[in-house]
């Protein structure tokens, strides 16, 4: 039984199609992330699930109820907003109680719920304060408390962490995940931050231009991006795209890589049937920074290349080294102890077992 089902949803403003037929389905207890660059329609989609924006075409089901044309209040949802949207004239307690009062929950019951929620989120000492007396993280907690108090069947989060500073964001991210694990809530979460998407989601829907580009578990989207957009959007630093020439030698497809003064031909051992069609043509090699490492980390299918180092950025746990392969800047994730110097050659290993290929014209993945 699905918790949320979206069928062919469209949103049309005048002549512009903002959402072009979205289909989605999640199970109870799942954490769905809608991620994409700004303007991709993810917030519009969330607002339509919430009932804050009318649906142009299609249907939305929550549980087995068709809620497409219901008021927000009748949809059994709660929402956490980017600006938190706490009622400034009410105390934290009143903020949490507001929805309960409107729904005529009994006073004694309200008190119990407020107690439970504030304990869960550790906001008990704040209950009698006004929102403007709270810090960003505390407001965030109260906003979540307000949503939790209602115990809805689906929680909607609209970029809830984007107003927090970097450290607090990581902290709250952990808390949201913990809360989800503990309470088993069903969540739809909008973000433009791919790290949030990766860390929080059970399933991710990557959106662009009003369409879902790929839908699946985070690791699957990371490892098997369907096209170049998804590959570059998910992961930081993003995947390297190296244009190279393919040729067929003895029945095996090889690609040529060049850096410094060295040129090597690398046979592709992965079983990618589509590659055959690219013999004697150019193709895009997609390789993630962590798949290019220093010597001494040989994998069964590693290719070695001496590369000209252009830039070194230590991050602590790793060092990001920028080299030039086939004329394009390529970022590699190197162990900090590995020796590297700008303008010197550095031997690097490319793990070919995980690389992916894209068509240079369509930017679609080659399978």
């Amino acid at each position, binding site marked *: 039984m699905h918790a949320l089902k979206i069928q062919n949803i469209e949103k049309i403003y005048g002549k512009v199609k903002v959402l072009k037929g979205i289909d989605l389905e999640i199970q109870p207890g799942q954490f769905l992330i809608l991620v994409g660059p700004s303007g991709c329609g993810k917030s519009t989609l969330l607002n339509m699930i919430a009932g804050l924006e009318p649906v142009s075409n299609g249907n939305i089901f929550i549980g087995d109820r068709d809620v497409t044309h219901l008021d*927000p209040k009748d949809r059994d949802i709660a929402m956490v907003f980017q600006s938190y*949207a706490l009622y400034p004239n009410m105390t934290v307690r009143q903020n949490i109680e507001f929805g309960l009062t*409107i729904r005529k929950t009994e006073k004694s019951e309200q008190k119990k719920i407020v107690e439970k929620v504030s304990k869960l989120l550790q906001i008990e000492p704040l209950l009698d304060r006004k929102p403007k007396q709270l810090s960003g993280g505390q407001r965030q907690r109260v906003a979540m408390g307000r949503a939790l108090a209602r115990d809805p069947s689906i929680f909607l989060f609209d970029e809830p962490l984007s107003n927090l500073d970097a450290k607090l964001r990581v902290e709250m991210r952990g808390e949201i995940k913990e809360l989800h694990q503990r309470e088993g809530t069903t969540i739809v979460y909008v973000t433009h931050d791919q790290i949030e998407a990766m860390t929080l989601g059970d399933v991710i829907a990557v959106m662009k231009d009003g369409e879902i580009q790929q839908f699946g578990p985070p690791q699957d989207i990371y490892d098997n991006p369907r096209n170049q957009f998804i590959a570059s959007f998910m992961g930081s630093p993003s995947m390297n795209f190296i244009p190279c020439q393919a040729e067929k030698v003895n029945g095996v497809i090889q690609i040529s890589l060049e850096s410094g003064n060295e040129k090597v031909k690398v046979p592709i051992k992965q079983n990618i049937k589509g590659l055959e069609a690219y013999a004697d043509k150019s193709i895009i090699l997609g390789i993630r920074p962590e798949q290019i490492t220093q010597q001494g980390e040989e994998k069964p299918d590693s290719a070695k290349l001496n590369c000209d180092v252009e830039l070194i950025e230590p991050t602590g746990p790793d060092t990001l080294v920028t080299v030039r392969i086939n004329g394009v800047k390529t970022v590699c994730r190197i162990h900090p102890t590995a020796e590297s110097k700008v303008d010197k050659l550095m031997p690097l290993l490319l793990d070919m077992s995980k690389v992916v290929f894209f068509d240079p014209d369509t930017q679609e993945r080659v399978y």
Partner: protein
Amino acid sequence: MNIKRVLIYSILGFAALIYLLPLVVMVITSLKDLDEIRSGTLLSMPQALNFDSWDKAWGSACTGVSCEGLKGYFWNSVLIVVPAVIISTVIGALNGYVLTKWKFRGSTLFFGMLLIGTMIPFQVVLLPMARMLGFLGLAGTTSGLIMVHIIYGLAFTTLFFRNYYISIPSELVNAARIDGAGFWMIFHRIILPLSIPIIVVSVIWQFTQIWNDFLFGVVYSSGDSQPITVALNNLVNTSTGVKEYNVDMAAAIIAALPTLFVYIVAGKYFVKGLTAGAVKG
């Protein structure tokens, strides 16, 4: 540095003095009797505190035919101003709420047309409004005058509230909608509590506009229902016997007192409300 300060303060002091001078002259003239006025200069002090002219202005001065002072007209004005201010502020608040948080097709055009309403001079609406009042059977009545003030003031109050509410985040309204609140509940529980500064602005603005109005008052009211501004005019222009400058002055001050009072009590909110922008959540 110090000399600059002294210079600035003396210029400011001088300007304030010039601004205050008419009021001072009015007050001291109202406290003199006619002999003192004739024998002394404009700025010479009264010999004793003498409130006779205030008594007369309030209770027995002649305004045209009747000689009952301003008393009755003062209450006329109160009866006009209080409902007109309250109703135009309430409707203005609702308009602003709808125009920012419940936009409808054509709401921008609607607001644009309302804005034109703020630029229409009184004189332009005089005749059509007179026809309308006659048609409604409200000509010459207090309720008719109240209605005129409400309609004319709506453009202004709507503008105030609309510009204030535009800075209240719409997410607040959305959050309340998801919490289950409807149109009125959101207005009452969320929006109104945030509106105090702009309500003060609207009330002060409308109060001074309507209290000080002369043109609508003189055109649309008659006889006993006239507001105080019209009565003051009649009092000063009644041309039997000697010109009683002290009574004129006292009457003018009485007519101006309520607006003065409103500014002193709520003035600081006025400035605050005009400059208040974002509501921090």
